[in-house]
């Protein structure tokens, strides 16, 4: 019996290590990255965060702009219960870096069927990049509860 137990535990260990190996490959080999520490927005309690954001680059000028051929940067602010801007337009094949933050409570920033899935936390800057190869309209939605009308908070990315 002990032999069975040892065998089982050894197999279990090998499976877990193999899974970890696959994850390392997905990061190093496929270049799938998670959001990380990408800067902060400093604000004191007596200041309105939204007002601070309006003076803090790049959030003083939300929207999308081409930063290099085929590469775009989209700057968005999430607040109850909308994104500013609500729509991002880019040509097909563009690599878009989203740079976003929240002006009030915690929001989500999720584009289903892409790698864009991140939290918007007041005071923190969230960054994620995705290459949109297929034309179409992509739903951007808030997937963190943010108050009474949370379910209405959405935007879109239009890829032409």
């Amino acid at each position, binding site marked *: 019996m002990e032999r069975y137990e040892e065998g089982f535990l050894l197999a279990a260990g090998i499976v*877990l290590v193999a899974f970890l190996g696959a994850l390392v490959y997905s990061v190093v080999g496929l270049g799938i990255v998670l959001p990380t520490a990408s800067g902060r927005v400093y604000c004191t309690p007596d200041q*309105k965060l939204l007002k601070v954001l309006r003076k803090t680059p790049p959030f003083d000028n939300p929207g999308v702009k081409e930063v290099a051929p085929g590469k775009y940067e989209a700057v968005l602010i999430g607040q109850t219960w909308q994104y500013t801007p609500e729509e991002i337009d880019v040509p097909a094949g563009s690599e878009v870096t989203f740079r976003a933050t929240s002006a*009030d409570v915690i929001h989500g920033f999720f584009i289903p069927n892409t790698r864009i899935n991140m939290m918007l*936390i*007041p005071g923190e800057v969230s960054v994620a990049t995705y290459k949109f190869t297929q034309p179409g309209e992509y739903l951007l939605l808030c997937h963190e509860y943010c108050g009474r009308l949370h*379910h*209405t908070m959405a935007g879109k990315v239009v890829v032409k």
Partner: protein
Amino acid sequence: MSTSVVYNPSKFELPEDQLKLIKWPIYFGFTLFVVGAIMGLEQALDHAGIRLIPYMPGINSYYQGLTLHGVINALVLTTAFANGFMSLTTARGLSRPLNKPLLQLAWWLLVIGVLLAAFAMFTGNANVLFTFYPPLEAHWTFYVGLALVVISTWVTSANQLITLSAWRKEHPGERIPLLAFTSVATYVMWDFASVGIAIEVVFLLIPWSFGLLAGADPLLSRTLFWFTGHPIVYYWLLPVYVSWYTMIPKQVGGALFSDRFTRVAFVMFILLIPVGFHHQYVDPGITQGFKFTSTVLTFGIFFPSLMTAFAVMYALEIGGRRAGGTGLIGWFFKIPWGDPSVCAQVLAMIVFLLGGLSGLMNASYDMNLVVHNTSFIPGHFHLTVGTAVVLSYMGICYWMVPYFEKRKLWSRKLALVQSALWFVGVLIMSRGLMMGGLAGMPRRTDLALAPYAANLPEWHIAGIMTGIGGTILFISAVCFFIELGMTIFAGEPEAAREDMPFTATVQAPESSGWELNLDRLRYWVVAGVVLTVLVYGPTLIGHLPPTFVAGLQP
């Protein structure tokens, strides 16, 4: 060779006044669960486009209902059950009574805490869900209530430790009986794990809700919350593991294989506390290195659950073969399925296989991008806490309530039907939630009112499955409430109390060698603290001083 997992295998009974203080929190938890279950039905049907909110007096929004559902089911029921059950198992394991004033204190703290939080939730002053992420702001009664609930768990733990220490003085050099060891270890793990939420609530949220702090720090609070928020699932699960390891083997006519490996599994849960970052994989402000560290540690914590899978399956197989089962899986059908306590818990174990595997997916670093905050997550945790834990609680109740009341279970058949309905219901509901999640359906969202949900066909079928499964789960819960109430008030009285089930072990604990260190919990706590400082220290220190932002009452 065989040895008992309790100090005195012949009869031991707690005094009646102590038993009352143990059963009341359990009944209290299940009474509140009535509200939690009704809210669950409402949310499941909402996914299918059917809104019950307009017909529910006092409930004004989906999110108020969801707060009640999460807080009652995940925080109150679990705490109430664990406080009662783990007090009982500690006392029985050591075969000695507990400290009565501490039992009373834990009970009243729980009641007052829950009433305060319930006041805030029912009046719509705490629509913040069970994660209560600031700067969403709740009424102070919500935070103070939850703090009292946590303190009641600490009092319960103190009671266990005092009882254990008294036992040790009288039995120098003896191994702690396994039933008591696993129970005390569960609470020691929780004492340590709950420090994060305690700091968050006591030093940040309560002063803020009283106006003493100008704002809240969202990331700091969130990080402290999830420091506790993952190990809290061990706190939900480990009382069930106590049952699976030390009681189910007896109930199926088998035996627990290894005393030593059982203790190793519980110690690993104390050691590997700092895994909460895996709930924050897509958060800004936390660097990738610490996120990946938490992936590795989370995979490490999967190991004791695989050990549990082996130990429990071994016990089931021994039982099934003793009952005449043959072949590779023939024994499985020979275990006593007609015993509702066994039926409920073995079905819970099967569901836990799926729950554990889906949990591993969620914890898989960048794979989390696919499922984070989608309905895949509630799909996962209704398999784990919603079934592996809660259906096991129900199975435990099927022997424990007759034990408390000295009455027979009212209807064995109803209890079996209840278990089967829960099993089928959760499989349908979680299937719906998970397929929806993979198609981008968000969690904790009033989907019936979400304007973007209407034109997404993949979500439609997922929502309908969620509604059907949730309805079956609700019917099962109603069966359980009937069974519980009828057993308490109308069960056939019995002359004597049958002792609780506890198994023998094939491999007894050693009385010398390295194994003795397993019983020295403080060593493992120190090791866990060191690991925690390494994993959490840099992020927390790097984030200081706190960035306070203004609150918003939802």
